[in-house]
Protein backbone atom coordinates (compact mmCIF):
# COMPACT_ATOMS: atom_id res chain seq x y z
CA UNK A 1 0.00 0.00 0.00
CA UNK A 2 1.39 3.45 -0.89
CA UNK A 3 2.21 5.67 2.10
CA UNK A 4 1.22 8.78 0.17
CA UNK A 5 -1.21 8.97 -2.72
CA UNK A 6 -2.82 11.96 -4.48
CA UNK A 7 -5.23 12.03 -7.38
CA UNK A 8 -6.28 15.23 -9.12
CA UNK A 9 -5.25 17.27 -6.09
CA UNK A 10 -5.98 20.99 -6.43
CA UNK A 11 -5.35 23.84 -4.00
CA UNK A 12 -6.03 27.53 -4.56
CA UNK A 13 -5.28 30.59 -2.42
CA UNK A 14 -7.83 33.13 -3.54
CA UNK A 15 -7.30 33.46 -7.28
CA UNK A 16 -3.80 31.96 -7.22
CA UNK A 17 -3.53 28.25 -7.94
CA UNK A 18 -0.86 26.59 -5.80
CA UNK A 19 -1.46 23.00 -7.00
CA UNK A 20 -3.49 21.81 -9.95
CA UNK A 21 -4.55 18.26 -10.75
CA UNK A 22 -1.56 16.69 -8.96
CA UNK A 23 -1.43 12.89 -9.01
CA UNK A 24 1.42 10.89 -7.50
CA UNK A 25 2.18 7.82 -5.44
CA UNK A 26 4.96 7.21 -2.92
CA UNK A 27 5.77 3.67 -1.80
CA UNK A 28 7.36 2.68 1.53
CA UNK A 29 11.13 2.13 1.82
CA UNK A 30 12.04 5.00 -0.52
CA UNK A 31 13.79 8.31 0.02
CA UNK A 32 12.05 10.74 -2.29
CA UNK A 33 13.16 14.23 -3.25
CA UNK A 34 10.29 16.66 -3.81
CA UNK A 35 12.17 19.10 -5.97
CA UNK A 36 11.16 22.38 -7.48
CA UNK A 37 11.98 26.07 -7.48
CA UNK A 38 10.66 28.45 -4.82
CA UNK A 39 6.88 28.83 -4.99
CA UNK A 40 6.38 25.67 -7.07
CA UNK A 41 3.91 24.10 -4.58
CA UNK A 42 6.19 21.78 -2.55
CA UNK A 43 5.21 23.19 0.84
CA UNK A 44 1.53 23.29 -0.14
CA UNK A 45 1.63 19.59 -1.04
CA UNK A 46 3.29 18.69 2.27
CA UNK A 47 0.84 20.83 4.24
CA UNK A 48 -2.08 19.14 2.46
CA UNK A 49 -0.63 15.74 3.39
CA UNK A 50 -0.56 16.89 7.01
CA UNK A 51 -4.11 18.23 6.97
CA UNK A 52 -2.87 21.78 7.62
CA UNK A 53 -4.60 22.94 4.44
CA UNK A 54 -7.85 21.80 2.88
CA UNK A 55 -7.82 20.99 -0.86
CA UNK A 56 -10.32 22.54 -3.25
CA UNK A 57 -10.44 19.37 -5.31
CA UNK A 58 -9.04 15.86 -5.68
CA UNK A 59 -7.99 13.30 -3.16
CA UNK A 60 -5.01 12.78 -0.85
CA UNK A 61 -4.40 9.74 1.35
CA UNK A 62 -1.67 9.06 3.88
CA UNK A 63 -1.23 5.37 4.76
CA UNK A 64 -4.61 4.71 3.17
CA UNK A 65 -6.56 7.35 5.08
CA UNK A 66 -7.41 11.01 4.61
CA UNK A 67 -5.07 13.30 6.60
CA UNK A 68 -6.32 13.49 10.18
CA UNK A 69 -5.90 12.12 13.66
CA UNK A 70 -5.11 8.57 12.45
CA UNK A 71 -2.52 9.63 9.88
CA UNK A 72 -0.84 12.07 12.29
CA UNK A 73 0.21 9.10 14.44
CA UNK A 74 2.04 7.62 11.46
CA UNK A 75 3.58 10.72 9.89
CA UNK A 76 6.58 12.55 11.26
CA UNK A 77 6.55 16.09 9.92
CA UNK A 78 9.28 18.71 9.88
CA UNK A 79 7.79 22.10 8.97
CA UNK A 80 9.85 24.70 7.16
CA UNK A 81 9.67 26.95 10.23
CA UNK A 82 10.33 26.55 13.96
CA UNK A 83 7.07 25.17 15.31
CA UNK A 84 8.27 23.86 18.67
CA UNK A 85 7.22 26.14 21.56
CA UNK A 86 10.22 28.30 22.36
CA UNK A 87 9.40 28.57 26.09
CA UNK A 88 9.94 24.81 26.53
CA UNK A 89 13.15 23.32 27.80
CA UNK A 90 14.74 20.43 25.91
CA UNK A 91 13.46 18.07 28.64
CA UNK A 92 9.89 19.42 28.38
CA UNK A 93 10.05 18.96 24.61
CA UNK A 94 11.09 15.33 25.08
CA UNK A 95 8.15 14.88 27.50
CA UNK A 96 5.83 16.47 24.94
CA UNK A 97 6.85 14.16 22.08
CA UNK A 98 6.91 11.15 24.39
CA UNK A 99 3.38 11.90 25.62
CA UNK A 100 1.79 12.24 22.21
CA UNK A 101 3.69 9.82 19.98
CA UNK A 102 3.83 6.13 20.85
CA UNK A 103 6.65 5.62 18.33
CA UNK A 104 8.91 8.27 19.91
CA UNK A 105 12.34 6.87 20.86
CA UNK A 106 13.33 9.05 23.80
CA UNK A 107 16.75 7.45 24.31
CA UNK A 108 17.70 8.11 20.68
CA UNK A 109 16.58 11.75 20.98
CA UNK A 110 18.47 12.22 24.27
CA UNK A 111 21.61 10.78 22.71
CA UNK A 112 21.39 13.14 19.71
CA UNK A 113 20.72 16.17 21.94
CA UNK A 114 23.66 15.18 24.11
CA UNK A 115 25.82 14.89 20.98
CA UNK A 116 24.78 18.46 20.07
CA UNK A 117 25.79 19.62 23.56
CA UNK A 118 22.25 20.67 24.48
CA UNK A 119 21.47 20.59 28.19
CA UNK A 120 18.06 19.23 29.29
CA UNK A 121 17.25 22.44 31.19
CA UNK A 122 18.13 24.72 28.25
CA UNK A 123 15.09 26.46 26.74
CA UNK A 124 14.51 26.55 22.98
CA UNK A 125 14.49 30.36 23.23
CA UNK A 126 18.10 30.30 24.45
CA UNK A 127 19.27 28.42 21.36
CA UNK A 128 20.45 29.87 18.06
CA UNK A 129 18.21 29.54 14.97
CA UNK A 130 20.42 26.74 13.59
CA UNK A 131 20.33 24.81 16.88
CA UNK A 132 16.54 25.15 17.07
CA UNK A 133 16.26 23.61 13.60
CA UNK A 134 18.56 20.78 14.64
CA UNK A 135 16.51 20.14 17.80
CA UNK A 136 13.30 20.08 15.78
CA UNK A 137 14.87 17.62 13.34
CA UNK A 138 16.10 15.43 16.21
CA UNK A 139 12.53 15.21 17.55
CA UNK A 140 11.10 14.39 14.10
CA UNK A 141 13.73 11.75 13.29
CA UNK A 142 13.46 10.13 16.73
CA UNK A 143 10.07 8.78 15.76
CA UNK A 144 9.68 5.34 14.15
CA UNK A 145 7.08 6.72 11.71
CA UNK A 146 5.79 5.24 8.45
CA UNK A 147 6.23 8.47 6.53
CA UNK A 148 8.64 11.34 7.15
CA UNK A 149 7.67 14.61 5.50
CA UNK A 150 10.63 16.97 5.72
CA UNK A 151 9.96 20.45 4.35
CA UNK A 152 13.18 22.29 3.43
CA UNK A 153 15.30 20.56 6.11
CA UNK A 154 18.53 22.00 4.70
CA UNK A 155 17.30 25.43 3.63
CA UNK A 156 19.03 28.42 5.22
CA UNK A 157 21.77 26.50 7.07
CA UNK A 158 25.52 26.35 6.56
CA UNK A 159 27.13 23.42 4.65
CA UNK A 160 28.40 21.76 7.85
CA UNK A 161 24.90 21.83 9.33
CA UNK A 162 23.51 20.46 6.04
CA UNK A 163 25.81 17.46 6.40
CA UNK A 164 24.73 16.99 10.01
CA UNK A 165 21.05 17.15 9.03
CA UNK A 166 21.40 14.70 6.16
CA UNK A 167 23.41 12.25 8.26
CA UNK A 168 20.77 12.54 11.01
CA UNK A 169 18.03 11.74 8.50
CA UNK A 170 19.87 8.79 6.96
CA UNK A 171 21.07 7.47 10.31
CA UNK A 172 17.72 7.56 12.05
CA UNK A 173 14.80 6.95 9.70
CA UNK A 174 12.75 3.80 9.90
CA UNK A 175 13.94 1.71 6.85
CA UNK A 176 10.39 0.46 6.23
CA UNK A 177 9.16 4.02 5.96
CA UNK A 178 9.24 6.54 3.13
CA UNK A 179 11.10 9.81 3.52
CA UNK A 180 10.02 12.83 1.48
CA UNK A 181 12.57 15.66 1.40
CA UNK A 182 11.39 18.91 -0.12
CA UNK A 183 14.18 21.19 -1.30
CA UNK A 184 15.58 23.24 -4.15
CA UNK A 185 19.20 22.48 -3.08
CA UNK A 186 19.49 19.42 -5.30
CA UNK A 187 23.25 18.86 -5.27
CA UNK A 188 23.27 18.44 -1.46
CA UNK A 189 20.52 15.83 -1.29
CA UNK A 190 21.06 13.99 -4.56
CA UNK A 191 23.39 11.42 -3.02
CA UNK A 192 20.76 10.19 -0.56
CA UNK A 193 17.73 10.02 -2.91
CA UNK A 194 16.16 6.91 -4.44
CA UNK A 195 13.49 8.78 -6.33
CA UNK A 196 12.63 12.33 -7.38
CA UNK A 197 9.45 14.26 -8.08
CA UNK A 198 9.87 17.50 -10.03
CA UNK A 199 7.17 20.03 -9.34
CA UNK A 200 6.71 23.33 -11.14
CA UNK A 201 3.97 25.96 -10.91
CA UNK A 202 1.67 23.55 -9.13
CA UNK A 203 2.12 20.66 -11.60
CA UNK A 204 4.12 17.44 -11.30
CA UNK A 205 6.42 17.48 -14.31
CA UNK A 206 8.44 14.32 -13.56
CA UNK A 207 8.46 11.33 -11.20
CA UNK A 208 11.34 8.94 -11.67
CA UNK A 209 14.00 6.93 -9.86
CA UNK A 210 17.44 8.49 -9.61
CA UNK A 211 18.96 5.42 -11.33
CA UNK A 212 16.62 5.81 -14.32
CA UNK A 213 17.57 9.46 -14.70
CA UNK A 214 21.27 8.59 -14.71
CA UNK A 215 20.87 5.62 -17.06
CA UNK A 216 18.26 6.96 -19.50
CA UNK A 217 19.19 10.63 -19.61
CA UNK A 218 22.88 10.23 -18.81
CA UNK A 219 22.91 13.12 -16.36
CA UNK A 220 22.73 13.76 -12.64
CA UNK A 221 19.50 14.90 -10.94
CA UNK A 222 21.06 18.33 -10.45
CA UNK A 223 21.87 18.62 -14.16
CA UNK A 224 18.37 17.49 -15.16
CA UNK A 225 16.82 19.93 -12.68
CA UNK A 226 18.80 22.81 -14.21
CA UNK A 227 17.68 21.75 -17.67
CA UNK A 228 14.00 21.33 -16.79
CA UNK A 229 13.77 24.55 -14.76
CA UNK A 230 15.98 26.69 -17.00
CA UNK A 231 14.81 30.32 -16.77
Amino acid sequence: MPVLECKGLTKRFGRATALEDVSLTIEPGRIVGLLGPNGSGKTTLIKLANGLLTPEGGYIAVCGAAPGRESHGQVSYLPERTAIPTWMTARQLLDFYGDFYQDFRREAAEEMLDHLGILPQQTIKQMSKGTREKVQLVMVMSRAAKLYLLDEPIGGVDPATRDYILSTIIGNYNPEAAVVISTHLIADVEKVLDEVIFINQGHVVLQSTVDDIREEKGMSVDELFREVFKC
Partner: protein
Amino acid sequence: MLRKLLKHEFRATGRIMLPIYLILLVTAVGSNLAGRGMMDGRSEALNILGVLIIMAFGFAICGALLMAFVLMIQRFYKNLLQDEGYLMFTLPVSVHQHIWSKLIVSAVWFIATVLAIIAASLVVAYQGGFLRELLDLLRYFLEGLQKLKISEAFNGTIYLVEFAILMFLSLVAFSLQFYAALAAGHSQANHKMLWSVAWFFGMQFVLQFGGSLLMVGLNKLDLYDRLFSHWDPTPAVAIHVGLLMAIGFLILYSAIFYAITTFFLKKHLNLE
Protein backbone atom coordinates in the same frame (compact mmCIF):
# COMPACT_ATOMS: atom_id res chain seq x y z
CA MET B 1 -5.14 12.43 24.81
CA LEU B 2 -7.21 15.25 26.33
CA ARG B 3 -5.49 14.60 29.66
CA LYS B 4 -2.08 15.02 27.99
CA LEU B 5 -3.16 18.19 26.21
CA LEU B 6 -4.39 19.56 29.54
CA LYS B 7 -1.08 18.69 31.21
CA HIS B 8 0.94 20.62 28.63
CA GLU B 9 -1.58 23.48 28.49
CA PHE B 10 -1.36 23.92 32.27
CA ARG B 11 2.43 23.78 31.98
CA ALA B 12 2.39 26.52 29.30
CA THR B 13 -0.01 28.80 31.18
CA GLY B 14 1.04 28.07 34.76
CA ARG B 15 4.47 29.59 34.17
CA ILE B 16 2.67 32.92 33.62
CA MET B 17 -0.28 32.76 36.02
CA LEU B 18 1.51 31.37 39.09
CA PRO B 19 4.08 34.22 39.30
CA ILE B 20 1.15 36.67 38.96
CA TYR B 21 -0.56 35.03 41.95
CA LEU B 22 2.73 35.34 43.84
CA ILE B 23 2.84 39.07 43.04
CA LEU B 24 -0.78 39.31 44.23
CA LEU B 25 0.14 37.62 47.50
CA VAL B 26 3.25 39.78 48.07
CA THR B 27 1.36 43.03 47.39
CA ALA B 28 -1.49 41.81 49.61
CA VAL B 29 0.93 41.20 52.50
CA GLY B 30 2.48 44.62 51.79
CA SER B 31 -0.96 46.27 51.82
CA ASN B 32 -1.78 44.58 55.11
CA LEU B 33 1.44 45.94 56.63
CA ALA B 34 0.73 49.37 55.10
CA GLY B 35 -2.59 49.41 56.94
CA ARG B 36 -0.92 48.62 60.27
CA GLY B 37 0.54 51.96 61.19
CA MET B 38 2.74 52.56 58.13
CA MET B 39 0.41 55.37 57.05
CA ASP B 40 -0.35 56.94 60.43
CA GLY B 41 1.36 60.21 59.44
CA ARG B 42 4.58 59.71 61.45
CA SER B 43 6.71 59.64 58.32
CA GLU B 44 6.03 61.18 54.91
CA ALA B 45 8.20 58.55 53.18
CA LEU B 46 6.35 55.65 54.84
CA ASN B 47 3.06 57.31 53.92
CA ILE B 48 4.05 57.44 50.23
CA LEU B 49 5.39 53.88 50.38
CA GLY B 50 2.11 52.66 51.90
CA VAL B 51 0.05 54.35 49.19
CA LEU B 52 2.32 52.87 46.50
CA ILE B 53 2.01 49.35 47.94
CA ILE B 54 -1.79 49.59 48.07
CA MET B 55 -1.80 50.89 44.49
CA ALA B 56 0.44 47.98 43.49
CA PHE B 57 -2.11 45.59 45.03
CA GLY B 58 -4.85 47.24 42.95
CA PHE B 59 -2.75 46.91 39.80
CA ALA B 60 -1.98 43.27 40.68
CA ILE B 61 -5.73 42.51 40.89
CA CYS B 62 -6.39 44.19 37.52
CA GLY B 63 -3.28 42.55 36.04
CA ALA B 64 -4.33 39.05 37.16
CA LEU B 65 -7.82 39.43 35.66
CA LEU B 66 -6.44 40.96 32.47
CA MET B 67 -3.79 38.26 32.10
CA ALA B 68 -6.37 35.45 32.52
CA PHE B 69 -8.32 37.10 29.67
CA VAL B 70 -5.28 37.76 27.45
CA LEU B 71 -3.96 34.23 28.01
CA MET B 72 -7.33 32.74 26.98
CA ILE B 73 -7.11 34.45 23.58
CA GLN B 74 -3.34 34.30 23.16
CA ARG B 75 -3.05 30.54 23.77
CA PHE B 76 -5.69 29.75 21.16
CA TYR B 77 -4.20 32.19 18.66
CA LYS B 78 -0.50 31.49 19.15
CA ASN B 79 -0.65 27.79 19.95
CA LEU B 80 -3.12 26.77 17.26
CA LEU B 81 -3.19 29.41 14.53
CA GLN B 82 0.42 30.61 14.41
CA ASP B 83 3.69 28.68 13.96
CA GLU B 84 3.02 26.33 16.90
CA GLY B 85 -0.14 25.23 15.05
CA TYR B 86 2.13 23.23 12.70
CA LEU B 87 3.07 21.08 15.68
CA MET B 88 -0.32 21.05 17.43
CA PHE B 89 -2.46 20.19 14.41
CA THR B 90 -0.17 17.31 13.45
CA LEU B 91 -0.53 15.63 16.83
CA PRO B 92 -2.71 12.50 16.87
CA VAL B 93 -5.53 14.33 18.68
CA SER B 94 -8.91 15.59 17.48
CA VAL B 95 -9.95 19.19 16.94
CA HIS B 96 -12.55 18.72 19.71
CA GLN B 97 -9.80 17.76 22.16
CA HIS B 98 -7.79 20.84 21.18
CA ILE B 99 -10.77 23.13 21.78
CA TRP B 100 -11.76 21.50 25.07
CA SER B 101 -8.22 21.66 26.42
CA LYS B 102 -8.15 25.41 25.76
CA LEU B 103 -11.65 25.93 27.18
CA ILE B 104 -11.08 23.93 30.36
CA VAL B 105 -7.70 25.52 31.12
CA SER B 106 -9.02 29.05 30.49
CA ALA B 107 -12.04 28.44 32.74
CA VAL B 108 -9.79 27.01 35.47
CA TRP B 109 -7.51 30.07 35.37
CA PHE B 110 -10.48 32.48 35.46
CA ILE B 111 -11.87 30.67 38.53
CA ALA B 112 -8.42 30.40 40.16
CA THR B 113 -7.86 34.13 39.57
CA VAL B 114 -11.12 35.04 41.31
CA LEU B 115 -10.25 32.72 44.23
CA ALA B 116 -6.72 34.18 44.40
CA ILE B 117 -8.15 37.72 44.54
CA ILE B 118 -10.55 36.71 47.34
CA ALA B 119 -7.68 35.05 49.25
CA ALA B 120 -5.46 38.12 48.72
CA SER B 121 -8.26 40.41 49.95
CA LEU B 122 -8.53 38.29 53.11
CA VAL B 123 -4.77 38.69 53.59
CA VAL B 124 -5.17 42.48 53.28
CA ALA B 125 -8.02 42.47 55.82
CA TYR B 126 -6.19 40.18 58.26
CA GLN B 127 -5.47 41.57 61.71
CA GLY B 128 -5.47 40.36 65.33
CA GLY B 129 -8.55 38.21 65.97
CA PHE B 130 -9.41 38.08 62.27
CA LEU B 131 -9.00 34.33 62.02
CA ARG B 132 -11.13 33.80 65.13
CA GLU B 133 -13.88 36.00 63.65
CA LEU B 134 -13.68 34.13 60.36
CA LEU B 135 -13.96 30.77 62.14
CA ASP B 136 -16.90 32.10 64.19
CA LEU B 137 -18.61 33.15 61.00
CA LEU B 138 -18.03 29.73 59.51
CA ARG B 139 -19.39 28.07 62.70
CA TYR B 140 -22.58 30.20 62.60
CA PHE B 141 -22.97 29.29 58.97
CA LEU B 142 -22.61 25.57 59.69
CA GLU B 143 -25.03 25.83 62.64
CA GLY B 144 -27.49 27.58 60.34
CA LEU B 145 -27.13 24.77 57.82
CA GLN B 146 -27.96 22.19 60.50
CA LYS B 147 -31.24 23.96 61.26
CA LEU B 148 -32.37 23.76 57.63
CA LYS B 149 -35.23 21.48 56.64
CA ILE B 150 -34.37 18.61 54.32
CA SER B 151 -36.18 20.29 51.41
CA GLU B 152 -34.29 23.55 52.02
CA ALA B 153 -30.94 21.74 52.21
CA PHE B 154 -31.78 19.81 49.06
CA ASN B 155 -32.80 22.96 47.18
CA GLY B 156 -29.72 24.83 48.42
CA THR B 157 -27.40 22.07 47.20
CA ILE B 158 -29.11 21.99 43.79
CA TYR B 159 -28.88 25.81 43.58
CA LEU B 160 -25.15 25.60 44.21
CA VAL B 161 -24.69 22.94 41.53
CA GLU B 162 -26.83 24.91 39.05
CA PHE B 163 -24.94 28.10 39.85
CA ALA B 164 -21.56 26.36 39.41
CA ILE B 165 -22.68 24.96 36.03
CA LEU B 166 -23.94 28.41 35.05
CA MET B 167 -20.59 30.01 35.94
CA PHE B 168 -18.60 27.37 34.04
CA LEU B 169 -20.85 27.69 30.99
CA SER B 170 -20.57 31.49 31.12
CA LEU B 171 -16.78 31.20 30.96
CA VAL B 172 -16.98 28.62 28.16
CA ALA B 173 -19.42 30.77 26.15
CA PHE B 174 -17.28 33.87 26.72
CA SER B 175 -14.13 32.11 25.45
CA LEU B 176 -15.87 30.42 22.52
CA GLN B 177 -17.00 33.77 21.06
CA PHE B 178 -13.33 34.68 20.60
CA TYR B 179 -12.28 31.19 19.44
CA ALA B 180 -14.99 31.11 16.76
CA ALA B 181 -14.02 34.54 15.43
CA LEU B 182 -10.30 33.65 15.36
CA ALA B 183 -10.90 30.26 13.70
CA ALA B 184 -13.19 31.79 11.05
CA GLY B 185 -10.93 34.77 10.39
CA HIS B 186 -7.82 32.62 10.08
CA SER B 187 -9.45 30.40 7.45
CA GLN B 188 -9.01 33.30 5.01
CA ALA B 189 -5.95 33.46 2.77
CA ASN B 190 -5.00 37.05 3.73
CA HIS B 191 -5.67 39.70 6.43
CA LYS B 192 -6.49 36.95 8.91
CA MET B 193 -6.67 39.13 12.03
CA LEU B 194 -8.79 41.77 10.29
CA TRP B 195 -11.20 39.04 9.21
CA SER B 196 -11.26 37.70 12.79
CA VAL B 197 -12.34 41.10 14.15
CA ALA B 198 -14.98 41.37 11.41
CA TRP B 199 -16.26 37.89 12.24
CA PHE B 200 -16.43 38.75 15.95
CA PHE B 201 -18.59 41.82 15.45
CA GLY B 202 -20.56 40.17 12.62
CA MET B 203 -21.47 37.19 14.81
CA GLN B 204 -22.40 39.46 17.73
CA PHE B 205 -24.68 41.49 15.47
CA VAL B 206 -26.38 38.41 13.98
CA LEU B 207 -26.93 36.86 17.41
CA GLN B 208 -28.25 40.07 18.95
CA PHE B 209 -30.55 40.63 16.00
CA GLY B 210 -31.70 37.00 15.91
CA GLY B 211 -32.15 36.97 19.71
CA SER B 212 -34.25 40.14 19.59
CA LEU B 213 -36.44 38.72 16.83
CA LEU B 214 -36.87 35.51 18.85
CA MET B 215 -37.90 37.48 21.96
CA VAL B 216 -40.44 39.47 19.98
CA GLY B 217 -41.79 36.25 18.46
CA LEU B 218 -42.04 34.53 21.85
CA ASN B 219 -43.74 37.57 23.33
CA LYS B 220 -46.42 37.39 20.65
CA LEU B 221 -47.10 33.78 21.56
CA ASP B 222 -47.99 34.83 25.15
CA LEU B 223 -45.96 31.90 26.47
CA TYR B 224 -45.63 33.46 29.93
CA ASP B 225 -49.40 33.84 30.42
CA ARG B 226 -50.14 30.45 28.94
CA LEU B 227 -47.59 28.74 31.20
CA PHE B 228 -48.42 30.48 34.45
CA SER B 229 -52.21 30.46 34.04
CA HIS B 230 -52.07 26.69 34.55
CA TRP B 231 -49.05 26.49 36.85
CA ASP B 232 -48.23 28.36 40.04
CA PRO B 233 -44.72 27.34 41.10
CA THR B 234 -43.30 27.98 44.58
CA PRO B 235 -40.48 30.59 44.72
CA ALA B 236 -37.93 27.76 45.15
CA VAL B 237 -39.13 26.02 41.99
CA ALA B 238 -39.29 29.33 40.10
CA ILE B 239 -35.59 29.94 40.90
CA HIS B 240 -34.72 26.45 39.61
CA VAL B 241 -36.68 27.10 36.43
CA GLY B 242 -34.91 30.45 35.96
CA LEU B 243 -31.45 28.94 36.50
CA LEU B 244 -32.17 25.98 34.23
CA MET B 245 -33.45 28.32 31.51
CA ALA B 246 -30.26 30.37 31.80
CA ILE B 247 -28.19 27.14 31.57
CA GLY B 248 -30.18 26.07 28.50
CA PHE B 249 -29.65 29.46 26.87
CA LEU B 250 -25.89 29.32 27.55
CA ILE B 251 -25.65 25.78 26.17
CA LEU B 252 -27.36 26.91 22.96
CA TYR B 253 -25.19 30.05 22.76
CA SER B 254 -21.98 28.03 23.35
CA ALA B 255 -23.06 25.30 20.91
CA ILE B 256 -23.38 27.85 18.08
CA PHE B 257 -19.84 29.20 18.65
CA TYR B 258 -18.45 25.70 19.23
CA ALA B 259 -19.91 24.52 15.92
CA ILE B 260 -18.41 27.51 14.09
CA THR B 261 -14.99 26.92 15.71
CA THR B 262 -14.86 23.19 14.91
CA PHE B 263 -16.21 23.75 11.38
CA PHE B 264 -13.42 26.15 10.47
CA LEU B 265 -10.63 24.24 12.24
CA LYS B 266 -11.71 20.93 10.70
CA LYS B 267 -12.86 21.90 7.22
CA HIS B 268 -11.11 25.18 6.47
CA LEU B 269 -7.82 25.13 8.34
CA ASN B 270 -5.51 27.42 6.43
CA LEU B 271 -2.29 27.86 8.38
CA GLU B 272 -0.02 30.50 6.89
